[in-house]
């Protein structure tokens, strides 16, 4: 074998294998790398053979997991070697070591192109393989025509043409525009007449990619695909070497059926009939056989046929055949088939009306929920979730609850979320829903995200009949010896609101309720203590006539927390204490309004309007979340009633403050009714804003900050006006003359997403576009979730990215149609080439009925996404700071009109970006020193240092110095920080720049002047 010539490589591999431990291996590798490095340095003395040997060694070392950061150049240079052996090694190693974004690759484009257009067939093959495997956009631009020529050339042998087909497929994925030229569809159709099955297989892959993007141009290929399928299924004229375990190329069969699934229908009756004959044969003629490989291959074909049948929505008869088959599959022993059976049943639910037949298999599916294989359990859970409806919800949810206690940790969160959603969506009565959620919290409190308990509180608040029941239940759970903290939160909240409804029951007088709740206080965290304080205040207010003993107890607690270090708790304690001491007057005020009638009715209506939608939307969200199975992060905190978004923690402040708020002014009433206040930038429809809705009732009462703020708004018209203007200025690019109005403010959603990595980018009555992003160094992966909210499909869906010059963005194919109630995911790859504040725009359009909607949305791929926090010590900081002396690397600016915030708040704000604040580096306590790393392709990882000097006497101005090793970066970062610190007028600032959940207790208004606020509220 050819290896005999490379003794050095074999020796090295044996050495590595003989290393007794990792240390030794590393030593050996380092020695070898040193050796290779020296040899590469004196390149003159190297023969091609030696180069080849070293390059292989590098690849081997690389495979072992070591960093090989040199020698790429040598590998690439072998590509232009004149002889085959060297060239081959150069191509293969380059394709393994580098990825498409690597700079060295660019250097090789010419050499590669020469091989592609050269006469040497073997060289052509090598070049096409490399381009097919790692070619990027630039390759597409410079090579596409040449590759096309090879593919359709009649003089090329099949081995070149099949490579050309797949190479072209890659180039098409990278840059569709340069590949598709006029008349290509005819060429494509000709390619399908190919006799060589190798070439045909590759061409079919190319066709799949083409029709997936735009089937309209390729209708002429459809009958040919059917012909190919007929030929294969009849085993007509298929050479022996292309049968696999007796099956005529299963892969080509699968691919052909895949291509057919991209055509919406088949109109020609003859073609349709032939296709259905083939499908029928596959469905009926596939038996389980002993040979594993034959079995897999035939079932691969069978499952693809199932998918095609589902797609063509054939005569009911065939559909029920499919369900019958799947029902058989989910009960077999072979785990692969069981898995696929469950998976395909779930898919089938989405496309056709077979729910009732699938329900017959419910018992079997529930058994699969206990399968030893987590892959199968996940499928079963998904399927149960999908097939749940009013008729079987009770059974399924109870199964899920039961399973919860034994489920793996990795699944519990998803499980509890799904159970919660189903319980709400299909609850036969609401008390059952409350039971389920409380059980959920009891059994898996750690895995119950906040939204779940927010939601149950919301529903209880909205349903008066439910309140006594919920209060009884909450009281019961409190008797349990050890309960989860979330349970403490819910019970405390519910009992704070409604325990007076139970007062006549044994064990439920205010004193008793208070005691049992207060028992929990020592064990809970600050956020819960805050809720407990509210509950105490509520209990106190509801106790009529006042119970002096209880009062003293509670006052003592308030008094104790008046000096609490947690500002949130402190504030509550102070306020509640003062309020409850107002004596008879305040009791009167408080007694007047225990139930917020108007608000409640508004909520009730809202709940009625959106019950179905809410559940559906959370389901879509959920699917999005499943990706990483994170908690259902509250992705959008859009105000449902004109208040700016507030923190989750803030929401919890509700009970007491709202009372106050009510008492002081009637303004709350108007807002609660959904009447929009002047400052509201965009008419929001509370009923459709899903998450706003989710958090609605809690928020609706408003935290002190918001209350104070709205107060403020009413007084100061002009400022409100600025807000409106500003929001409009921030509104999406281009005018939106659509009939369909977006839900929520697009600008605010964008601002939010600039600081978060997941959330809703856009929503209107038909579609919701969610985003989930991952950022690594200068790369980003954005997943767009396009969720159709309706029961009719959205058509002519188009998404175009208009990237700024510093971002390289690739959007994967966006399907033209989004089926009803379905969600599609479109990954978007982003590469940051250099520092800039320009923003990429997504030009998105679709059609629903007669409405054509076109929006241009800014994508949150902004400068700060490419920052990573880094902490810098004094020893590192000062030399660096000094070495970057003066412009253009170091820039200084005096910034005026900074919105006033304390230093701690500013530090907080920076941390979100994320920049690292290094306290103590600057001797002056009024200054901040901040560091971060910026990543882009051009600058690589680059350290940025920032110093902020503030003036304690005048918080509206500061001096900022920014330094980095790149002038553009320094400038852009400086401008970026400036924008964050000043640009947005006071009212919208907080939500826009610093999501409150990060610094919930320090919202400026609340902190700066609680006294004034209180005074205002109380007159």
């Amino acid at each position: 074998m050819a290896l005999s010539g490379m003794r050095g490589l074999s020796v090295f591999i044996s050495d590595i294998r003989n290393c007794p431990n990792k240390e030794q291996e590393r030593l050996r590798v380092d020695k070898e790398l040193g050796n290779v490095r020296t040899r590469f340095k004196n390149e003159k003395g190297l023969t091609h053979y030696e180069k080849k040997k070293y390059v292989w060694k590098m690849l081997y070392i690389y495979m072992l997991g070591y960093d090989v950061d040199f020698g790429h150049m040598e590998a690439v240079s072998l590509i232009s070697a004149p002889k085959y052996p060297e060239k081959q090694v150069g191509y293969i190693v380059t394709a393994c070591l580098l990825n498409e974004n690597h700079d060295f690759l660019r250097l090789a484009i010419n050499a590669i192109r020469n091989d592609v257009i050269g006469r040497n067939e073997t060289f052509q093959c090598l070049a096409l393989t490399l381009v097919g495997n790692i070619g990027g956009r630039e390759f597409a631009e410079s090579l596409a025509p040449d590759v096309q020529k090879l593919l359709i050339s009649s003089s090329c042998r099949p081995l070149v043409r099949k490579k050309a087909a797949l190479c072209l497929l890659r180039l098409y994925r990278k840059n569709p525009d340069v590949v598709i030229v006029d008349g290509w569809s005819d060429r494509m159709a000709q390619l399908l007449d190919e006799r060589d099955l190798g070439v045909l297989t590759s061409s079919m892959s190319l066709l799949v990619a083409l029709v997936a993007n735009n089937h309209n141009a390729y209708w002429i290929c459809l009958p040919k695909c059917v012909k190919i399928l007929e030929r294969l299924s009849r085993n007509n004229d298929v050479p022996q070497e292309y049968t696999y375990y007796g099956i005529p190329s299963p892969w080509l069969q699968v691919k052909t059926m895949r291509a057919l699934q991209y055509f919406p229908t088949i109109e020609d009756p003859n073609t349709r009939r032939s296709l259905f004959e083939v499908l029928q044969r596959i469905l009926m003629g596939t038996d389980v056989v002993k040979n594993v490989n034959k079995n897999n291959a035939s079932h691969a074909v069978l499952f693809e046929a199932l998918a095609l049948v589902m797609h063509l929505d054939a005569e009911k008869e065939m559909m029920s055949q499919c369900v019958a088959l799947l029902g058989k599959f989910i009960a077999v022993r072979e785990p692969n088939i069981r898995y696929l059976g469950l998976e395909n049943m779930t898919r089938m639910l989405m496309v056709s009306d077979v729910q009732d037949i699938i329900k017959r298999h419910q018992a079997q599916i529930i058994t699969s929920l206990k399968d030893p294989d987590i892959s199968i359990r996940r499928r079963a859970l998904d399927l149960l979730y999908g097939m749940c409806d009013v008729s079987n919800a009770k059974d399924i949810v109870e199964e899920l609850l039961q399973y919860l206690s034994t489920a793996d940790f990795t699944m519990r969160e998803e499980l509890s979320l799904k159970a919660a959603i189903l319980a709400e969506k299909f609850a036969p009565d609401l008390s059952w829903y409350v039971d389920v959620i409380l059980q959920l919290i009891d059994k898996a409190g750690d895995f119950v995200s906040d939204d779940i308990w927010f939601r149950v509180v919301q529903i209880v608040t909205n349903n008066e009949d439910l309140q006594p029941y919920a209060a009884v239940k909450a009281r019961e759970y409190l008797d349990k010896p050890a309960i989860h903290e979330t349970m403490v939160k819910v019970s405390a909240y519910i009992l704070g609101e409604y325990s007076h409804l139970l007062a006549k029951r044994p064990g439920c007088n205010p004193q008793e309720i208070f005691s049992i709740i207060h028992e929990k206080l020592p064990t809970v965290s600050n956020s819960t203590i805050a809720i407990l304080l509210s509950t105490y205040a509520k209990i106190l207010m509801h106790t009529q006539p006042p119970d002096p003993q209880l009062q003293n107890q509670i006052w003592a607690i308030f008094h104790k927390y008046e000096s609490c270090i947690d500002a949130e708790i402190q504030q509550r304690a102070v306020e509640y204490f003062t309020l409850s001491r107002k004596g008879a007057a305040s009791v009167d005020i408080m007694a007047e309004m225990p139930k917020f009638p108007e608000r409640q009715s508004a909520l009730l209506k809202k709940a009625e309007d959106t019950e179905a939608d809410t559940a559906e939307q959370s389901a879509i969200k959920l699917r999005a979340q499943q990706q990483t199975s994170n908690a259902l992060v509250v992705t959008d905190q859009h105000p449902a009633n004109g208040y700016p978004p507030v923190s989750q923690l803030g929401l919890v402040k509700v009970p007491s403050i709202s009372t106050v708020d009510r008492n002081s002014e009637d303004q709350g009433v108007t807002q609660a009714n959904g009447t929009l206040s002047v400052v509201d930038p965009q008419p929001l429809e509370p009923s459709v804003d899903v998450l706003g809705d989710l958090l609605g009732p809690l928020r609706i009462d408003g935290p002190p900050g918001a209350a104070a703020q709205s107060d403020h708004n009413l007084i100061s018209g002009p400022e409100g006006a600025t807000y409106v203007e500003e929001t409009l200025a921030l509104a999406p690019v281009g005018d939106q003359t659509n009939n369909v109005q977006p839900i929520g403010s697009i600008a605010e959603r964008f601002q939010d997403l600039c600081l978060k990595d997941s959330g809703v980018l856009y929503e209107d009555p038909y579609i919701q576009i969610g985003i989930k992003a991952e950022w690594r160094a200068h790369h980003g992966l954005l997943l767009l979730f396009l969720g159709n909210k309706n029961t009719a499909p959205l058509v002519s869906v188009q998404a175009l990215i208009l990237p700024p010059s510093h971002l390289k963005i690739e959007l994967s194919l966006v399907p033209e149609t989004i089926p009803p109630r379905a969600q599609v995911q479109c990954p978007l790859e982003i590469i940051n080439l250099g520092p800039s504040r320009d923003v990429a725009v997504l030009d998105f359009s679709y059609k629903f009925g007669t409405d054509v909607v076109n929006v241009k949305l800014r994508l949150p791929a902004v400068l700060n996404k490419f920052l990573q926090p880094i902490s810098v010590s004094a020893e590192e900081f000062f030399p660096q700071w000094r070495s970057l002396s003066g412009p253009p690397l170091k820039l200084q600016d005096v910034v005026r009109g900074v919105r006033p915030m304390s230093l701690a708040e500013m530090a907080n704000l920076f941390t979100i970006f994320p920049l690292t604040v290094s306290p103590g580096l600057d001797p002056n306590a009024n200054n901040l020193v901040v560091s971060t790393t910026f990543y882009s392709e051009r600058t690589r990882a680059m350290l940025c240092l920032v110093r902020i000097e503030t003036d304690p006497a005048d918080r509206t101005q500061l001096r900022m110095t920014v330094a980095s090793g790149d002038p553009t970066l320094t400038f852009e970062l400086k401008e970026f920080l400036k924008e964050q610190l000043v640009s947005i007028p006071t009212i919208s600032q907080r939500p826009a720049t610093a999501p409150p959940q990060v610094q919930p207790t320090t919202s400026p208004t609340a902190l700066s002047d609680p006294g004034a606020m209180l005074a205002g509220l109380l007159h």
Partner: protein
Amino acid sequence: IHFVLLISRQGKVRLTKWYSPYSQKERAKVIRELSGLILTRGPKLCNFVEWRGLKVVYKRYASLYFCMCINQGDNELEVLEIIHHFVEILDRYFGSVCELDLIFNFHKAYYILDELLIAGELQESSKKTVARLIAAQDSLVEAAKEQASSISNMIAQAAK
């Protein structure tokens, strides 16, 4: 197919091929995550693992795990048989292949994989054709070697 991985039971990487762009760091992370996920799976489970919104189809042959990563919607069994197809070709080439063959001749494994997949798509489903092409490549390399030695001979002689 986004990438192909060959991992030994001890978690050693025997071959990696990336069709989607992953940086060096990401590659290391993927390998770490997947070894943890796949090597711990019992023998009687299915050959599919759901991972980061994608699916990994894997199959164990003796001490080696062959893994291929695909999209959610792709046909899993088809890919499973691509793996087997690859193994059969390796087997035919090396004559009853074992892990050691692949360690010492890892470059051969890369050649063969390149004849089987391009851009993460199957390019050739005939074992015979692949075998023929690899044999042709081998003979090209051999021929070049002979030629080199004969030229050097000639030069050596001429220099005399």
